[in-house]
């Protein structure tokens, strides 16, 4: 690389950090202007219920000074990034966002009290379908198949869960939901691997197809037979002793099987992808299919298996909407969670654990509307409902830098003879 291009790259870097720094300073000012001015009183966050065996005292924050301090710190981070132009500023951006959210919560709670444990619990529950969608996405994209159809697979899983759960009980309903998800995974694999359909078109077609067929069957079968749309839901399981821990206990150890299995799937898929030979082969197929084929790995089979597996995970995630929460199916009830899951996958850089943390952020944004309704904030509920979508846009716009997908992503593989 010659001197000229190095200089140019340096320039681009400084320019980028200046923009990010200015954005943070702007964010700090906005937070003080909108939340800090005119806010009075204290924000009370309840950490445990009075009936809990180990009760924690409430967390009480003086609203005005907390918001002021957060705004100042965010602006300080912005200034630091501009002046020093450090190589890694992701941590500062993350901290700034954390402070911004904290300031927002304190502003909304000022003069009232709010259950932080309840919020965290809702966050984890809402993160489950998003995390599972992201896992499905990772399984497919690690073998270089873009799966835009996850939304449809979630919806299919939700529908199958409701109908089969109503007929055969929730356990068999869940298994059949997983199989239905796997079936759509198979269809996607057949379309993109065998027939070499454009991956995005195939995914969109699956989404429209599932939306149409589930809505059609809802109005044709379920409206006239309401007993087919009344599945028993999975109750939350209390893990003895652990569920007594303040804050963490009810959040982590008093949930239904979807939460436990989602965490289990994250751990297993991390181990599978990065510690086993099969996982290594899968990643090879995603990065350089030709080289993988040369080493005797069947690209076609590997892609089929993983896309089907991704479909099954999505089917499981879809069952959460019916068997894990309300027990009945409504048209289009997944509300874009499949796409948000894809954003979580990108944010988590195609790594299961990263995607889980990203899903938690989305889960938080998703639970805002429900939880903040209690506090009667002046923000219209429609705008709170937009929060997860806005966060998704910000995330895919790559505020965390450019994440790189597997090399061969989106390309059909043609075997040479």
């Amino acid at each position, binding site marked *: 690389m010659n001197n000229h291009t190095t200089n140019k790259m340096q320039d681009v870097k400084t320019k980028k950090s200046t923009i990010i720094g200015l954005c943070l300073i702007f964010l700090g000012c906005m937070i003080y202007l909108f939340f800090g001015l005119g806010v009075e009183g204290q924000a009370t966050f309840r950490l445990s219920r009075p009936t809990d065996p180990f009760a924690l005292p409430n967390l009480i924050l003086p609203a005005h000074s907390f918001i002021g301090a957060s705004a100042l710190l965010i602006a300080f981070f912005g200034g630091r990034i501009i002046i020093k132009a450090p190589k890694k500023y992701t941590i500062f951006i993350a901290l700034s966002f954390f402070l911004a959210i904290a300031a927002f919560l304190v502003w909304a709670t000022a003069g009232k009290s709010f259950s932080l444990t309840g919020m965290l619990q809702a966050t984890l529950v809402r993160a489950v379908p998003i995390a599972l969608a992201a896992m499905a996405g990772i399984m497919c994209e690690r073998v270089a198949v873009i799966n835009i159809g996850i939304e449809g697979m979630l919806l299919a899983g939700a529908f199958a869960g409701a109908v089969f759960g109503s007929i055969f009980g929730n356990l068999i309903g869940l298994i059949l939901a997983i199989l239905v998800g796997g079936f759509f995974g198979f269809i996607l694999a057949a379309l993109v691997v065998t027939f070499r*359909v*454009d991956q*995005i078109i*195939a995914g*969109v077609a699956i989404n429209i197809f599932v939306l149409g067929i589930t809505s059609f069957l809802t109005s*044709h079968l379920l409206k006239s037979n309401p007993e087919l749309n009344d599945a028993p839901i999975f109750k939350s399981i209390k893990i003895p002793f652990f569920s007594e821990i303040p804050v963490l206990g009810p959040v982590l150890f008093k949930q239904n099987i979807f939460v436990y299995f989602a965490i289990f799937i994250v751990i297993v898929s991390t181990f599978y992808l990065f510690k086993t030979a099969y996982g290594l082969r899968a990643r090879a197929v995603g990065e350089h299919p030709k080289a993988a084929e040369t080493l005797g790995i069947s690209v076609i089979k590997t892609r089929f298996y993983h896309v089907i597996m991704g479909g099954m995970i999505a089917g499981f995630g879809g069952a959460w909407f019916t068997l894990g929460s309300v027990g009945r199916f409504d048209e289009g009830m997944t509300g874009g969670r499949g796409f948000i899951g894809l954003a979580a996958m990108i944010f988590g850089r195609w790594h299961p654990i990263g995607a889980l943390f990203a899903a938690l952020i989305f889960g938080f944004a998703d639970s805002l509307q429900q939880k903040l309704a209690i506090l009667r904030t002046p923000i219209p509920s429609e705008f709170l409902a*937009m929060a997860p979508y806005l966060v998704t*846009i910000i995330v895919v716009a*790559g505020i965390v830098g450019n994440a790189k997908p597997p090399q061969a992503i989106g390309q059909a593989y043609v075997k040479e003879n």
Partner: protein
Amino acid sequence: MSHYFSNRETFKEIILIPVIATFLAISLGLLLLIFSGSSSEIALKALIALFLGSFGSLSAISETFTAATPLILAALGIAIGFRAGLFNIGAEGQIILGGMAAVIIGFSFHLPFVFHIIFVLLAGALFGAFYAFISGWLKAVTGAHEVITTIMLNLIAYRLLDFFLRISWIQKEGRNDPISKSILETAELPRIFYVLDPNLRVHTGFLIAIIAVLVVYWLIFHTTIGYEFRAVGKNLEASRYGGINPALTIIIAMSSAGLLAGLAGASQIAGILGRATPGFSAGIGFDAIAVALLGRAHPIGVLFAGILFGALIAGGREMQVSADVSLDLITVIQALIIIFIAAPILIQKLFPWIFK
């Protein structure tokens, strides 16, 4: 993606595959109807209603063209996107924004007849263009995938519409449900055959759609910017070396797509609905994706595909009324059409004797 839309296509690819795909999809849709418990008589009745409701009478034909109008406009936008290598799923949101703008201009300004309509359509087009610009700009500057951003903007548009319909100066007086005021008479697109029969709903929006087909054809194939769209769509890196600014091209392509979708929303408001309600967009933005694919991203193809889909929708409504079959069946048929069109190898394997 743009390898689907090369210009040197054979007769078989342009005509035969779409025709086979459509028939195959309708047959599978009817099979689904039978499998879901309806008798074969109802399926037959549905099939007849599908034809009678779309081309069976003068008013059926008028309904077909009425339904085709917004589909053609929005699909032209999506076709421009395809040509530039962009997959715009956001037509639905752009239609909502365009329709919202059209409603506001339509009821709040008092202007003479023709000027008011032009103002309404312009506002719709501009709002749609602005909404799509966001995705185009994000794609060009940060590389954010337009599929995800446009879908998120769709979801945001639904919430915006809910919010918008509860604002006191927009909500219809004396109503508690979310419904906007009606646009003034001067803002309505006149019906084409009003003199002949005032009940024929096909309106001047259809003529605008035809003009748009010609303009987009000229834009894509006879202007520099159209060439740049196609160059960026075919090979972004090569176009950069050829002196094209891909970022700017992407933004312009996306904004023009939104402009047409916004126009579709405005024409729907000014020509048919007269006011906005939740879900007034009725999935037109998604149907338009299928129309653009079926028309192979060619303006003339889009025109015919739009009329075909208009027929499916008009026939589907008749099917709903006379055979009590849900309109969602049409959505299933549309998805199947997309799959068959996008997988020509599949059709060639299913019907090998046609493609010898």
